[in-house]
């Protein structure tokens, strides 16, 4: 029996608790529709006048979720367990409060399963119907009691505790922290797991000095813009995009808010990774695949949207000058210094290798 229809006639108690047709139940268990027969339900009952005496109106506690139910209910009002439908009895399910889950502002809960749950707007594991959420936005991986959040090249970004998780990065989220996809805020519950350890400063904590060596990587190269101006590139990943929080800010309508990344090794070798930009990143006129690192030859121009940039190895980079100070070379542009401060808290993130 594939289909079933139960139309509540909606008037009067005539249909209430009356024996109903067997109901798609396998193995004829359907005969035990009403409580009273199953072990453990022997509670003092009273006969309701006008009803068949076998239909005793007893209160019943759900064997699965332990919720007390009013008499005559066919299903547990909380978990939906059909009373008497477990042939061999059931072991109560552990309190669902122990499940790892994300809860949104309306109280809607997304229980996390072990492994990867993809978050997005369409046909994914966790569907968030919000215009600021990309179709495939990010993913959440539950490993034991640890949750790792990643961004899958979303338009509006993925954040853990206020810090942006860039595509390719892995951000650990702790119990009680807010994970944000676009503008949808979800609170992570990891019962039994610790909150963010004090040793790891909360991501929102102010970071007084942002250019300490070792924290961010040393200044190893410069991105030369078409107009001749330069942005500093540090060892490690440098973000490129239209938004002001990027390490290299593009004034280009064709650039995505977060367009790409320039990863620079300690010796100034640059690698370009497109972050899933809308209008693409181009090398020699060819569009790079998103999230695929491509090495940049010295002096070679890379085009983000419509802006062509070359990377110049910094004089006095760690290659020549061991134990570099890592500070900006020359007098830094104050606005750029500000941008750097914005980007700096990435050092606070708990990064996994």
């Amino acid at each position: 029996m594939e289909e079933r229809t139960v139309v509540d006639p909606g008037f009067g108690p005539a249909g209430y608790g009356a024996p109903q047709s067997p109901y798609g139940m396998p193995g004829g268990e359907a005969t035990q529709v009403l409580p009273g027969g199953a072990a453990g339900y022997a509670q003092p009952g009273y006969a309701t006048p006008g009803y068949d005496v076998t239909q005793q109106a007893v209160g019943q506690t759900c064997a699965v979720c332990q919720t007390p139910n009013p008499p005559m209910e066919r299903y547990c009002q909380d978990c939906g367990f059909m009373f008497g439908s477990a042939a061999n009895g059931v072991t109560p399910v552990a309190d669902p409060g122990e499940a790892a889950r994300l809860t949104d502002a309306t109280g809607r809960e997304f229980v996390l399963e072990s492994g990867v749950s993809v978050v997005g707007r369409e046909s994914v594991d966790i569907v968030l119907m919000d215009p600021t959420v990309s179709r495939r936005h990010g993913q959440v991986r539950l490993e034991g009691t640890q949750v790792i959040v990643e961004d899958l090249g979303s338009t509006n970004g993925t954040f853990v505790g206020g810090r942006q998780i860039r595509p390719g990065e892995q951000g650990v989220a702790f119990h009680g922290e807010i994970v944000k996809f676009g503008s949808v805020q979800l609170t992570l519950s990891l019962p039994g797991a610790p909150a963010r350890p004090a040793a790891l400063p909360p991501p929102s904590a102010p970071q007084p000095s942002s250019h300490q060596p070792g924290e961010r990587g040393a200044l190893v190269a410069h991105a030369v813009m078409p107009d001749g101006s330069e942005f500093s590139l540090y060892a490690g990943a440098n973000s490129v995009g239209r938004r002001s929080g990027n390490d290299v800010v593009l004034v280009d309508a064709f650039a995505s808010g977060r367009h790409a990344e320039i990863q620079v090794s300690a010796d100034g070798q640059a690698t370009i990774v497109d972050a899933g930009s809308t209008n693409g990143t181009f090398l020699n006129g060819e569009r790079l695949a998103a999230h695929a690192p491509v090495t940049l030859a010295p002096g070679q121009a890379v085009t983000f949207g419509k802006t062509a940039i070359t990377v110049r190895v910094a004089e006095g980079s760690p290659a020549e000058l061991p134990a570099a100070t890592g500070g900006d070379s020359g007098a830094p542009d104050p606005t750029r210094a500000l941008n750097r401060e914005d980007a700096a808290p990435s050092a606070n993130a708990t990064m996994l290798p």
Partner: protein
Amino acid sequence: MESTRIIGPADLGGGFGGGDATQIGGFGPGGYAPGGFDPARTAMGAPPQALSLDVITGNQYAQAGRSASDHILFQLNAGGGMVGRRMPLNLCLVIDRSGSMEGEPLEYVKRACGHVVDLLDQNDVLSVVTFEERVDIVMPARRVVNKGLVKEHINRIQPGNTTNIYDGLVAGASQVASVRSEGYVNRVVVLTDGEPTAGVKDYSSIVGAAGEQRSRGITITALGFGPEYNEELLVGMARRGGGNYYYITRPELIPEVFRSEMEQLLSIVAKNIRLRLVLSRWTDLRQVYGHQPTIGPRTVEVQLSDLDRGATVRILTELALGRRPAATYRVAKAEVFYDDCVTGAFNQRIEADVVFNFVDDAGLVKSGVNGTVQREIEVAGASRNLERTMMGLKTQQLSTAHAMADLQRTQMLLQQAGASEQAAEVGQAIHGLRVGSGDAEKTLIGTVMDLDLGKRK
């Protein structure tokens, strides 16, 4: 189908309890409250339900002790065999009389409006509004008593200049609102052949106005005529307005489309329809296909279009089912609320349970897959394919040949899934591409709307 339906061709007259006399006699001046639909009076007796709800789960089994997700199809059927009084209409025809409508189109529109008048009776309320740069109330809302006079008004419509859809829509809706009551099927039918060129022109304001009317109980149907109108705008109005969208290719088809809209309006059996899911513990919503649900803690609600006699609407949802020990569970309860347009009983409610058998036997789970639901998932996929093809055509990233190949695939898929009407529409679009008439998108966008809203004939 083993569905049981609690609908019979029962005697509906009984529910009215002597309301017949008032129904006929109550034409006092300004007395627009139709006699037979006093909710206080019609609650007696046990009228049969206008709607029935089938719940079809993608699989009757689920693996015990594991979490899973499954699709559930809710099928809402409007009784086919019912005879009874229909709810009177409160209709406004909003007609574009911009310069481009001059000649044949406007003449056919007048003829079509004349047919509409013929189909109405003196319980119905009609108003006619025209728009160009400015809006004219050709005929304010009134009962259709003197049909000849109404037609005279209509025949006086003259072509003007630009196209002010927004003001036309708002004026039409306010005519309907002036006599609006729960005892009417309230509808505004807008016909246009062009882009908005005067007044408020932006998409979101116009579509927002349509949505606003719907929340007041007035639904909007949008008719697009000819090659120039903005199909996205019209579909937006119809979707948010809870009515229909039609694409009219040639002027001589205008009366036909009016007739088909009227046929539907005159046989509406339920309006203000809402589907509400109450989720059990360990059940979560993944998605409702083609709808924008309102989500609360443990509840999901979707607003549905009015249903005419014999129509079916399908709502496909996906639920995440948490781990449960082996047993039978109601994972969600489905409730449908609606106003019964035949008995005049408001806020009716029917419900059905979404039940899964959680079993240990993986073989059972494999065997329990439901073909109907699988087909519906394919249809939902077809709708996304059509959207992609349309987008490709619009951005010219897809050549005509490629688009035709894509459409042929989708057409086959729809055919196999039993959506033959939609498959035929896709065929029409393929033909349009082949002859280069440039109207494929105007057809397809309506197909996508109907597929998304689960309308199936």
